[in-house]
């Protein structure tokens, strides 16, 4: 069984972003976020949420208030974008 030795190992062990079920997540810049908000004419709370406790959020080190752009692989469109707003978990 793998032993927990160094901190890096632990991160490596719990790394999830390379799993095939996990699509690409990236934090949008302040500008990018503004652009998305105006493109969809929606407030931040109207976006789908991403909890600050989500394993992916911890890994990409997003903070509550960030907007995360997700690049999904789609059966219908080939590739598509989804956006989630990082919020404090309940």
């Amino acid at each position, binding site marked *: 069984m793998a032993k927990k030795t160094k901190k890096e190992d632990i991160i490596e062990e719990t790394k999830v972003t390379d799993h095939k079920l996990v699509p690409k997540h990236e934090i949008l810049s302040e500008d990018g976020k503004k652009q998305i908000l105006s493109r*969809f004419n*929606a407030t931040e709370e109207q*976006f789908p949420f991403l909890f600050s406790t989500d394993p992916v959020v911890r890994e990409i080190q997003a903070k509550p208030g960030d907007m995360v752009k997700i690049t999904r692989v789609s059966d219908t469109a080939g590739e598509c974008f989804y956006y989630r707003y990082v919020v404090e978990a309940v």
Partner: protein
Amino acid sequence: MSLEESIKSVGGIRFALSSPSEIRKYSVAEITAPETYDEDGMPVQGGLMDNRLGTLEPGQKCATCGNTAPKCPGHFGHIELAEPVIHIAFVDDIHKLLVSTCRACGRLLLSQEDINEYGKRLSEKSSASPMLVEIISREILAKVKKTKECFFCGRGQYEIEFTKPTVFHEITETGGATRLLPVAIRERLERITNDDLKLMGYDPSSARPEWLVLQVLPVPPVAVRPSITLESGIRSEDDLTHKIVDILRVNQRVRESKESGTPPLIVQDLVDLLQYHVTTYFDNEVSGIPQAHHRSGRPLKTISQRLKGKEGRFRGSLSGKRVDFSSRTVISPDPSLDISEVGVPFEVAKKLTIPEKASPWNIEFLKKLILNGPFKHPGANYIIRPDGIKIRLDYVTDLQMHADTLAPSFIVERHLTDGDIVIFNRQPSLHRMSVMAHYVKVLPYRTFRLHPAVCPPYNSDFDGDEMNLHVPQSEEARSEALTLMRVQDQILSPRYGGPIIGGIRDFLTAAYLLTKEGTFLTKEEFTSLALAGGMTPNMELPKPEKTDPVPLYSGRQLFSLFLPRDFNYVLVSKWEKSLRGATKDVVIKDGTLISGVIDRAAIGAEESDSILHRIAKDYGTEQARRFLNSTLRLLKAFITRSGFSYGFDELELPHEVRSKINETLDESYAKVADLNAQYKKGTLPETRGLSPESALEFYVANELSRAREKAGRIADKSFSIQNAGIIMARTGARGSTLNLGQMTAALGQQSVRGKRIEKGYQKRALPHFNKADPSPDARGFVRSNYRDGLNPIEFFFHAMGGREGLVDTAVRTQQSGYMQRRLVNALEHLKVEYDLTVRDPNGNVIQFRYGEDGIDPAKSDHGRAVNLERLIDTTALTSDQNKPAAESTIERAVEKYGGELNPRLREDLLRDLKSSKLDPKSVEKVCEKVVELVTKGTVEPGEASGIVAAQSIGEPGTQMTLRTFHFAGVKERDVTLGLPRLIELVDARKQPATPSMDVFLVEDYKKSNEKAVKVANEIRFTKVANVIDRVEVLVQGEIDIYLSKARLAERQCTLDDVLAAIQSPKRKIESDERRNLITVKMEVDFASLHIHKNKILNQKVKGIPGIDRVTVVKEGEEWKIQTSGSNLAKVRQIEGVDKTRTTTNNTFEIYQTLGIEAARNALVKEIMGTLEEQGLEVDIRHVYLVADLMTSKGFLQQIGRHGVAGTKTSVLARAAFEITVPTLAEAAVRGETEELRGVTENVIVGLPIPVGTGMIDVFMRGV
């Protein structure tokens, strides 16, 4: 003010509590007398039927408003309660408030700093923390419980004990309990400050906590609780009236005894009685107290019961209402009708009317109708004059006079006539095709007639089914029905983007008989059939295929007559498929059927990529309707003339075949006997993971099912292709080869709960067999067939299996019905907005582009925006073959047009064009057409995509099998499938019924079986009990554990592993490696020694908790591990496991370890997998929407009251779904406002729903 003047549109509803002073203010009378009527039958003043509360008798005037019954809205009265009582709907709130506040000063039991802190957090509500109110009230509740002393007045706090339903006690330091009376509770609640309340999520402006304890009880107006007069003249009062009488009586007694100085104990008993009556007045189903009963013994239906449940106010009277202008009767088939028509009996047509306004253009026509009167069709039933007076023509003697007075702007309610549009429906209305608009055809006799081709969408048959018909009354309603709901507009199902309407049963048989090789028709036959199909004089007659000796036309020529002239298509007929496989036999060139037979695959219902589908897609649904009509009518005429029947003699098998079948069965019997012998000898080959008993059972069941198959196949082979049964089965008209085999060869194994029949008597299914009889007959194998008949024992077994089938169907319809309701409730408010996002009514985005590509599945081509192959094929016909476009030209063209296309479509287009050899001009043409088709296929804003998705997933639920434990991949891994699995998924269960993992391995491990097995053993949970031979507990305080070498080896454990596992300071352990014995010595009594033994046996030796079984399997080139039991987080940490591919079927675990996006993908995968496994076609966009909704709040939400449906913002929508009364109570204390933005809310208040056509409005500029 009259009632008409007060009619306004509802803008919103605010929920709040009435304060005592408000109740008194709105009261028109204080009710004191428990009597209702006096001796003269007059209502008692101050009694429950006081005429100030409104009136019920027609003609009698209300003492308050002066209106008569229809116009008097009713007025509230009130009762002054002698002693305060607790309102049962709010006890939990009262409890919470008592616990959270100081018993002396009423402040929150928090420090000033905490209060300031929370206040600050609430006022600065950040968008990054949308659930703040919930978070804070939860935190406060947790903190408050730890506080022992008030931070403000310093008083010590006592624990509050709440005894359901309404009693509170305070536990003092001495341990004694003092009862907290409602009076005291009320005083405490009064002291709570408004600011503190706000922190806890209450809205003091709409609900002060002291109002939760009642001092004044409002008495509803008589209209709410009408009394009925029985035939005998005796009045029977409403349940509510009875209950209020009880309250009044007790109230009076309490008051009297208080005044007369009765001992407090007795007064208290009376107050408790008063509490009981008030409680049951609100809710007669409170647990912990007896129900109040009527004199007849029936429980009273009080306020809560009136609102709750299916027949309650919300679901029974507000969300759904009874309607006028509707009719219901039995349906029967009529293939002579158009598919868009419905046959309506004269009797019905004379009762259902359409209001038609007279104008110079129709006045003569209307006059004629009036002259016909109400009893002669087509006539009229009413005339409405411009002054609003309605004349009923039944009682009119001089119809001529009324016809003469008719003038423009009069309205005539005329009979339903041919060509009117009506809405036709069959319950259960599982999808939108269950409600379609038909044109009326008035016919004699007393049933509704419909074309058999529209049976599939309604899921109807004619064994006594009844259907409903509704007549739209307004011009708007009619035009909406006409543009959106007609049958031809529903040919393509939004569930999978293929036709749901089409030929069934005999139409398909007829199509085969007509188009098969060797069907020829004389000119006379040909023309008369063509005429039946609607051939017109301007259509050209084809050249006869044979001219010698007489001109003869082929059946294919007749069929080709109604195909579009420029239609080209090839497909595999069902017939060909069952015979030879997938060779495309049906060829249609330029609208002529060249070869192949027409059957289910070509014109059938629920068949995608059929001829019918192509016509509907390429030529439009109107053309498809005409094609279907002509073809089906023609086929009907053809089969009527040629005749078709299936008889007893066609089920007869030749003698040789019968003996061959018998031989096969005997062989199988012998094999079963052999298997049994092997089992007894112990030489039965092992199937890993199965006990010898289950292995035997497994082999036997396999052998027997093969026996039936073989027998069926032999029978099948012996039939000629002229056999009617074969024709029906192969064309897809009815039945299957399995059915044929069961009728002619052998019925096969009967099963109950997926197993051969075993229960009944000791070791035998019926007393006619010996105990433990190994013969297949004894366990429900039926050798006989339906034709020869079953012997009594077989018959009984068959009945057992049959009964299970019936029970299964009954259970399944219920389960899938509930799932459907939950899905619809969770998704109904989602619609496509103008920017093609999918949002809920509050603007929360669920999807950023509907279905990720913005294509409407109903307008798609079997799920795709464009059928590229077909488009290129058709373009190729006009393309210059010799000048194929250069690759760069193609790339440029795609670049030019493809700007808006999604990546996948662009890729496909590029690839297909490059391999197509089209000339440059055609390439441009294709690109242009693709863009056009994508635009055409794009969803329209306002589309109720949520409801469509819910229906598309819910409707096939009824077709799913219920009990499906299926072996997936490996035999010993059984996985829940079918409806239970689907329900489990939308429920977002934390633990599915059969968790299971697919563990992939990294490089070195996946290539070697040995290494894979090693990893498997690291994963499999092994406890001590798994590796022992036996264990002995000795009286002298010793546990002897004999380890099994074989088991240790199988699980790759050693004695040391076990030793390490059971190590404990309390135990003295010795081991004997030679004998594989571990001795544990303990100095405890014998009984606890046994407890220790069990403890030791359950100790983990190695592996991961939760993983029960593992199987190493080879998939392609690599080894992988399948498990039953799941623990993703832990398994990922094992060396050799591929972290990037290893998955589980537990979506909640995926959410926890991989995050919400992975959970969404897993949900889509699992739901699609479940549907596909059942052979159900559902467009993936519907599944996307459900998965996106379930994950849109950052965590997995279930489809149901604890998830999506329970967190809707609308109070009314939540109340109408499930937990009605508590929802309303909570809305009141929180001061919630109903904004009326969703669907259910607007249905309830009677406004248009804000989706589709209800979303838009005419905007008028001010003058």
